[in-house]
């Protein structure tokens, strides 16, 4: 039976079994490359997406659990930003994505989709976080290249740009 979900503002229908983790629907059916498979155990955060604005690990969230909710991946952040700020058209990049480029954050970049999603959740709740608040909020996300300091700088930069 088809499951209907809303991803990045668009409605999609998937034949995936209801227990299929959202991640595989996003990657294999919707061909989105932002969310990544990292552990399948909700330990690393590379699969993170926003579900109704909250950071959620798509590798352990059954697709059936997001029916009727709004899923936003890395790709959908500019449109989400436009909606929040009531802009007519979406910018090319969300301020966090721009800050990530300005700070030249990624090394391999594999974890960064999840990092940016987590940062978007953080800034929506706390638009001007301190270093300590940023580190505490980001702590559940792993980066093996160890770009943590650059990530903190980028989040502060994005917060400043919005402030």
């Amino acid at each position: 039976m088809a499951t209907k979900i809303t991803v990045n503002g668009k409605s999609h229908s998937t034949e995936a079994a209801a227990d299929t983790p959202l991640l595989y629907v996003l990657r294999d059916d919707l061909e989105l490359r932002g969310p990544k498979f990292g552990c399948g155990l909700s330990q690393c955060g590379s699969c993170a997406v926003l579900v109704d604005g909250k950071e959620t690990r798509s590798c352990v969230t059954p697709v059936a659990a997001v029916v009727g909710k709004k899923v936003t991946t890395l790709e959908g952040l500019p449109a989400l930003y436009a909606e929040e700020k009531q802009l007519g058209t979406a910018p090319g990049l969300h301020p966090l994505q721009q800050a990530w480029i300005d700070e030249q954050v990624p090394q391999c970049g594999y974890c960064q989709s999840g990092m940016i999603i987590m940062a978007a959740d953080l800034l929506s709740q706390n638009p001007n976080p301190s270093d300590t608040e940023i580190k505490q909020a980001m702590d559940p996300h792993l980066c093996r290249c160890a770009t943590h300091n650059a990530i903190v700088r980028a989040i502060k930069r994005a917060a400043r740009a919005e402030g």
Partner: protein
Amino acid sequence: MGTPEPTPNDHQRFTRSALLKGGGALIVLIGVPAAVWGIASTTGSDAPTTWPAALDPSALDSWLAIHADGTVTAFTGKTELGQGNRTALSQIVAEELDVPFDRVQMVMGDTATCVDQGPTVGSLTINLAGPQLRQAAADGRHALLTLAATKLDVPARNLTVENGVVSDGSRRVSYGELIDGRLLGMAIPVKGKARGFGLALGGVRPKSARKYRIVGQSVPRVDIPAKVTGEHFYIQDVRVPGMLHGRVIRPPGLGSQLISHGKPSHGARVVRLENFLGVVAEREWDAIKAAEELEVKWSDWAGLPTMDEVYSYIRKTPSLEDTVVAHTGNAAKALAGASRRFEASYTTAVQTHGSIGPSCAVADVKDGSATVWSGTQGPNVVRAALADALDIPVDNVHVITYEASGCYGRNGSDPATIDAALMSQLTGHPVRVQWMRHDEHGWDPKGPATVHQLRGGLDAKGEIVGWDHEAWIPAFFETTVIGSVLAGRTVRMPSLHLWEDPILYDIPASRQLAHYQGDIGSAENDGVGLISAWIRSPVQLQLTFASESFFDELAAAAGADPVEWRLRRLTDPRMTAVLKAAAEAAKWQTRPSPGPNARGASEVARGRGVATSLRGGTYNAAVAQVEVDRKSGKIRVSHMVMVQDNGMTINPRALKLGIEANVVQTVSRALIEEVTFDRSNVTSLDWEGYPIIRFTDVPTVDVISIDRPNMRATGSGEPSCNPVAPAIGNAVYDAVGIRLRSLPMTPVRVKAALEERAMKRPISHRLGAV
């Protein structure tokens, strides 16, 4: 449902034989957008493009394609591993060709179109492949000037080039007009080997560094925009038509034999060749569930030493080879005659690469040919391994490299590539294999355990008279590929064993002796043990931990300040400059260690430590500031200073960010990382079993780069990791007066050492040392 739509990178499914059938000189690919190479489109040109087929390094067209619109494609056998090689190599090519940076694109790591410049290892890309590409680009510029001289009928020496436009002062002609869709067709003299690290090209003299306008600039990295929008193609994103999803099912013990298996669930198919077992399914989740649920009977195997006995096991196992790496004078005699003699054992634990994305590959094997998409560091190395494992001629194997999750050494990419190829050959379908987290943590080749015996002697005045460093380290003449072993088609890939650099200090008599060992447990399992491959920096992180910590022990014994102790014995002015810069940046207070409060009662003790390293021509010095919690034993690194001199800097900002990340990663490895195993196999199979550093434990890092624009650029990906662990260990000694001789420096080890001292017993070797 069903087969995913082909993605734009599908165009790359041309085979080497098809390529060669294209006339042996060129192949035309229609409508290849620039973005498919993983970089932002710089031209918007979808016009037919001419690609060189020849991989002969003496053909200029093997290196460069100048397009009619003035853009340039440069080809390199190297791959991007996340530290910015693509950008830095593009800067080098743009600089020599005198074209704007954004007109250069790189094709990386495609065995059909890129010269084999050796695998992307050992921080040797900028160091060795950089000069190769620089020379090719300089020769390319010369070829274009020759064309311009003919066209304008003036001597080439009267011509200048700016932004890809040649001028004789009055008339102008662009590279695009000059090439007019043709190949460059020029030969370059090959002076060294025809492939690999030793490949050396000749021809015209490259540009003087004084004239550089692109090299040395902090050009933004070209791969970053797509990495923050989700457009970047990782190897994990490659999909091809008709593809099945595969998952491997590994044995519980390294030497377990497959006895039987049940029927697969979820419509999956079992793929088996001897002990090589997996499942394939059309949908990825079906493959995952089927692999989880398949009932499999394996035989028991328990040939590994326990973790408690691993270091004595390593010492006791007969070496494959013993080599004196370096020596000065007669160390044994000098030590025998010393007034005070010191000896200590150091050990380092097994560690994992820990890539955030488990390794992945896609393979299409049919009719005796293989097209393979891989995240490998060594496309030509894995190409040869594929040919062996599939038993097909190497000419029939085409490896196309896509960037993978960061690897920092040989992670699971190569073995996952062999897995995908075996599954494709066995099923007759293209197969995508992604390892699960437990596969990556369990089966990526491991950074190996090492053991060190250090001896040092001081004379009556406190001068060092003798030094001896004996190390039991893996041989790494080759790395075993697990899938091929299980399938009964054992392939071993050539590798490196690199204890190269002599000790840094002027000591009258010294020796460095390597005992090269097989993998742990390999003697018990037909040569296949706990498969190992270096994590950055090959063997030197371990060697430097031992030597720079023990050097500090001698400084403390002599009552000397650790920085002065080193400066007095350094003879290389570049090393001296690096160490002085580190001490200055850290506001180093000159005094011996341990510090005045090392035996105090405060809950938190603070200390600072220093260490240096020289790796492949790159100089590093680190100062660590630590806080030791006497109650919990936890070490918190609050700040690191890292100074690096790698000669010429290609991209200062990318360099500094790479160093900062490498330092933080190594703090993690120094403090908490240890693979656990039982007698059968690895037991740390996820991020709870093998934690890595998190945001709240990350130190601030002050990176200082000493640029020497007139010197050869040496490597940077690895070297800065080397002094991190000993700087931390030396800082702990400064803080609390205990010497940590085992990596990682966990709270358990710190507490044990503090408690032992409190009981006034000598620190025994219970802490993991032998």
